[in-house]
Each structure stands twice: as structure tokens, then as C-alpha cells.
């Protein structure tokens, strides 16, 4: 059966039924395990590898059980978000960057989307949680309070039928039951002012449609920062905005991050934004990390062919090229991932070792990590000289 899928890309109704029955069994089991009552605290607490990190992703696997097979959206992702730093996650659409962040928020569409294995350790105010195993009830105390998210489209992520102020109020009131209404409103107005909305009392009473795109994104940021979270996930915060507004929002995020002393996980496909904002960069391709390192590591000495291709395919002002580089081929189908390097079929720098299984992580320096056989070979050649 599996052979058929690989060859044609189309599957018969019978096969599809078989797959969905299997999926229901697996997801049902996971869901049942999740929904147990009174899960002991010890089951979802952990210890950080490095107490200076806010989040540690450790070999995270998030799969989607679809009717045509299992889509491995995130397939073994490990990286850290240090305290007070900005980590940029970059990659094309469908590479799993958003699913990684949704896993961290426990917002993956269930039951078909499931964290299958691996752990996400979050260094919270009251202990270290393994978010992959945290039950929903405990998660609700963390989500929005200690981790918050700024979504991509400010147009669709605000509720059109409620006033802006009320939506920000809700976040604050939900996590602080004993605070009076007046105090909540005061805090909301303060937040709106913090994100640079001049007419804060007026905006408090407005509906989202009365605001421009940039203003809506500011409201989203105000909402995300209202409880001074330890980690802000910004999922393409400026993609829908104009360049001049983008510059304003980025500037705002940078200054606010320092003000409330939190970390940012910035997800975007704009390399320019990453270079400007991030301290560390993670490059993802087809659900795996192909390269990670400090922003200088990745932008100054890009090593993985995909990173190199990505950097070359973006036109840069004041750098004239006759023809833009374009990476040949296309992304492999997430349902049938090859068992060799995912990028091999599109790679122009293949070496002998590339026929083998998926390349291991190779440490070029303390911070710079690449998954590519090209570097493995270079290292081997270097080694005998030492």
C-alpha cells in the first residue's frame, strides 16, 4: 500500500479509509492520554539544560494525521531561546515554522495535529514545564500570561464585534481574577499608550474596522504584552504591513522587549527583518532545522546550500545582479519525505556522502550548527592535520 502512495501521489478510497481508521486509532489514544484527570505535577515538570534559557525545544515532532497519510510538519527540531534575546525562525511557507510556534502554545489543531514525541521545556515563573505534556488546564495559566503570541494578520485576529479595549481587558482580567474593572481598564490604556497609540482613550472604545493595519497590529502587540510575558512569539508580525509601518512596528518591538525584559521568537520569511531584529537565527526546511547559529554566523558565513540559495534569491538594494538565483525544483511532499537529505534533489553542491541517510548535525563552532554532508567532509579533511 505504502508503495502505491509513493509512486502515484493519488490513493484509492479504500486506502484512504484504511489510513483514516488508523489515524483515528492513534489520535484517539493520544487524546485519551491527554484528557486524564488529575495528572501528577511531576509528569509535566522538567529541568532546564541551561537555566538562562526561556525555552528549549528538544527533538520536537509534531505530526498531522491526514486522510492521505501522516504529514511530518515538524520532524525533530531542537533549539533554545535564551533569556532576553531574539531568535528568528526563517523558512518558506510549509516548512513548519508556524507549527513549531503553535506547538509551543499548544494551539496545534487537535485531534489530527499531535505532538508525537520530544519535549518543549519552558522556564516559567513557578517552575519548569514540559509543554508537550502539560494538561490543558495548566496550560491555560501559562498561555497568554507567560507566553503570548502576535499573529500574522491583524485584520483577522481581532474580533470584529467587540471593542478593541474590551479585547485587551479580557486578557488582563482572565489571568487576574481579583483585579477590579477600573484597574483593568487603567492597565489597558497604559498598554495602548506604551505601544504608541496617541489617542488611547478614543481607541479603547473603537472597533477593529475603524483602525488601520498598523494600528491593529499595535493593538495586537498591546494585547500580547499586557501581562509582561517571558516569551513573545511574533508570527510574521509585519508581513501584511507597508515598509514604513513595518519599520515602526519593528522599532516598537525592539524597545518593548527591553522594557519588559522578555525574549522574542520571531517567525518570518523576510531575511531583512531577521538580520535586523534577531540575535540567533534558525533556518528551517521541510520540518527540520538545516542551519542555526548567531545572526552573524548565518548571514556572514551561510553554509547550508539552502541558506545560501535563500540569501541569493532575495534582491538587495544597492547590490546589482543581472539575474536572481532561484533554487531549482520544489519542496518535497510532506507526506512522503525521502529518507536521504531533504534538500538533495534541489541542491547544486551535492557531494558523495549525500546519498546516505539524513545528514547529522555538525557543529562548525560553539554556536553554528549545520545539517549537511558538505561540512562533514570538510571537517574530516581538516581533522588529520591537527
Amino acid at each position, binding site marked *: 500500500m505504502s508503495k502505491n502512495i509513493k509512486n502515484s501521489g493519488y490513493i484509492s478510497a479504500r486506502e484512504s479509509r484504511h489510513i483514516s481508521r488508523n489515524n483515528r486509532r492513534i489520535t484517539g489514544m493520544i487524546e485519551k492520554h491527554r484528557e486524564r484527570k488529575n495528572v501528577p505535577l511531576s509528569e509535566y515538570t522538567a529541568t532546564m539544560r541551561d537555566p538562562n534559557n526561556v525555552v528549549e525545544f528538544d527533538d520536537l515532532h509534531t505530526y498531522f494525521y491526514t486522510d492521505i497519510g501522516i504529514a511530518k510538519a515538524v520532524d525533530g527540531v531542537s533549539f533554545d531561546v535564551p533569556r532576553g534575546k531574539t531568535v528568528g525562525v526563517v523558512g518558506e511557507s510549509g516548512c513548519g515554522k508556524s507549527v513549531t510556534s503553535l506547538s509551543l502554545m499548544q494551539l496545534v489543531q487537535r485531534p489530527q495535529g499531535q505532538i508525537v514525541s520530544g519535549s518543549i521545556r519552558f522556564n516559567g515563573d513557578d517552575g519548569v514545564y514540559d509543554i508537550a505534556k502539560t494538561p490543558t488546564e495548566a496550560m491555560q495559566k501559562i498561555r497568554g500570561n507567560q507566553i503570548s503570541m502576535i499573529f500574522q494578520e491583524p485584520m483577522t485576529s481581532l474580533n470584529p464585534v467587540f471593542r478593541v479595549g474590551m479585547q485587551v481587558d479580557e486578557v488582563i482580567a482572565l489571568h487576574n481574577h481579583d483585579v477590579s474593572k477600573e484597574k483593568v481598564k487603567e492597565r489597558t490604556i497604559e498598554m495602548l499608550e506604551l505601544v504608541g497609540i496617541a489617542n488611547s482613550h478614543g481607541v479603547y472604545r473603537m472597533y477593529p474596522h475603524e483602525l488601520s493595519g498598523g*494600528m491593529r497590529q499595535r493593538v495586537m502587540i498591546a494585547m500580547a504584552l499586557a501581562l509582561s510575558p517571558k516569551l513573545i512569539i511574533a508570527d510574521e508580525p509585519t508581513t501584511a504591513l507597508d*515598509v*514604513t509601518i513595518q*519599520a515602526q512596528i519593528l522599532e516598537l518591538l525592539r524597545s518593548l522587549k527591553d522594557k519588559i525584559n522578555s525574549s522574542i521568537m520571531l517567525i518570518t520569511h523576510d*531575511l531583512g527583518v531577521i538580520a535586523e531584529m534577531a540575535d540567533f537565527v534558525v533556518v528551517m526546511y521541510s520540518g527540520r532545522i538545516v542551519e542555526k547559529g548567531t545572526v552573524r554566523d548565518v548571514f556572514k558565513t551561510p553554509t547550508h546550500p539552502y541558506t545560501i540559495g535563500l540569501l541569493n534569491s532575495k*534582491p538587495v538594494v544597492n547590490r546589482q545582479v543581472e539575474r536572481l538565483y*532561484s*533554487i531549482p525544483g520544489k519542496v518535497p511532499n510532506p507526506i512522503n519525505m525521502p529518507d536521504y537529505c531533504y534538500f538533495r534533489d534541489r541542491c547544486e553542491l551535492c557531494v558523495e556522502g549525500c546519498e546516505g541517510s539524513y545528514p547529522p548535525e555538525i557543529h562548525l563552532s560553539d554556536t553554528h550548527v549545520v545539517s549537511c554532508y558538505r561540512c562533514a567532509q570538510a571537517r574530516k579533511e581538516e581533522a588529520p592535520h591537527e
Partner: protein
Amino acid sequence: MSEKKKKTDTMIEVRNLKKYFPIKGGFLGGTGGAVKAVDDVSFTIMRGTTMGLVGESGCGKTTVGRTLLRLTDKTDGTVLFEGKDIYALKREELRQLRPKMQIIFQDPYSSLSPRLPVGEIIGEAVREHHIVPENEYEAYLDKIMASCGLMPYHKDRYPHEFSGGQRQRICIARALALNPDFVVCDEPVSALDVSIQAQIINLLKDLQKEYGLTYLFISHDLSVVEHISDTIGVMYLGKLVEFGTKARVFDRPLHPYTVALFSAIPMPDPDVKMNRIILEGSIPSPANPPSGCRFHTRCNRCMERCKTEEPVQREVEPGHFVVCHLYNL
């Protein structure tokens, strides 16, 4: 036919183009003013070149593109296409001119009919305008599709079966199938990924070389515009504030808005720390634009006269036009 083939150097000439959209409504249904989407814009595009049009959303870029093709009616001004005023043409004359000017839309997800197979999307207008004799139709379609990177067997598929980049190729093939001279590309790569963007930009450049096309390239991504254009126009709130060759505009931007816009581009290099000029606030409403210079509310070099007196277009150096009091020599 022979007259048309004669090469005139100017492809498009726009003089004082205006497009106002009346604001309907009010208690008695009267018109309460107008949105001045395009207000007194003039420029020329030479044959075989690309003009890039940049600006924030809502500044009227798309409206310029649409009025050039007479997809919406103008309010005032003239548009000359190879010397012919397209707004003076009769219905039938305009129909004959239509294949010569085409448009590629921004969103490849909504600009293709979901009910037509790709072959029909591309070929419908070819048959309608009798671009090729009937017996060569299939071969012609294959040729056009091949030049846009599509396979012949894609003809029977429907748009939903394609990825964003492939769909944009279909849109390009549709425009190209009519053998146009002038193509308006309205944000053709904004909805695409970086690596796919590069493919589409390269494709557009190749086709330009092959067929001698003239482009009006509308985009808000300055780095893309710089890559593809020969001349650049910068729009702000319905006005063309700066216009000139690429080299002049990028090396020596004159208008304060252009300077701020360029400084806002994020550079993919962690060592470059730009001297960023952050514009305060957002673009004012085009229904009620500021008096005097429209940019004065956000300008960092605003003078007293900017608030009252409207600047006019001046040629500061040959081929470099700017609308600003600062360069009022």
C-alpha cells in the same frame, strides 16, 4: 499593420491623470466629496523598459495601473498609448487595442476562475481575438505555456491543483498569450515565497527580453522594484512625488518621503545599521488630504510654506522629477 510596427520610442505617455472616486451616501444620497486616488500624475514609459511604481498601500498605485488600461474611467487627463489617446477610442477600436495591453494581478488565488481548466483560461482570449489561425491554436498554446514554465498536460487541470508560484505563471501566460506590447504587473510577487519570487522575477525579465515587452511594475517591495526597473516613480497619497531613472532615484533620492522609504528597507546583513528615518503616524485619508504638500504632516523637513502652498513637479536634473518645495530653485 505596418504603421503599428513602426517603433515609436514612447510607449505610454500619461499627462495630468486624475481619478476621483465619489463618496456616496449621506442622508439624502448626495455625494459628500471624493477620494482623490490619483491626482495629477504625469510620466512616460519608453518602449522595452520597465517602470517601477512604489508607495504605501492606499497611495493609488493600482488605480494608476487600472486607469492606464482603461479598466476604470479617468476623471481628467490623457493617456497616450503609442501616441493614441485610449480614452478617445471607440468601443471597437478599443477592443482591437485590448490584446496589446495586459495586466497581471496581485493575488494568483483569486484572479483565476476556479471553474475553467488552465488551457481555457489562457486560450479563451486567444480565440476571441483571433491571435493565431485555428489550426495552429493548440501548438501556440503549448509554446506560450512552455515559455512560462508550464507543461502541455497542465492544460486540462484546474487552478486549485497548482501552487501559488505555478498559478502566477498561469496568470503571466494568460497575459502573454495575446502577444501584448505593454503589461501592467500589479504586485505580481507579493503573495509568493522568497525563492518562488526569484523564479517569477527571472521569468518576467526573460520574457521581456524575448518579446520586447514594456512593463509597469507596481510593488511595495523596493528591493524587487530596484532589481527589475529602469525608471522609478514614487507615489504618496495620489501624487507622484518623485520620478526618474533607477540610478538617479536610488543613488540620490530627493523627496523626503523617498529618503524615508528607502531607509525603512530591512537589509539582510546584520552589520549594516541603517540611519533609519522612522515616519510618524500613517498615511492620511485620501478623502481629506492635508492642505499644501500632502506629505507635510509626516515630513521631517517640513517648512512653513509646505503647509499652505502645493508644490509642483520640477525637473531637478535631466530625467529626474520631484514634487517638493526643498528643490525650488
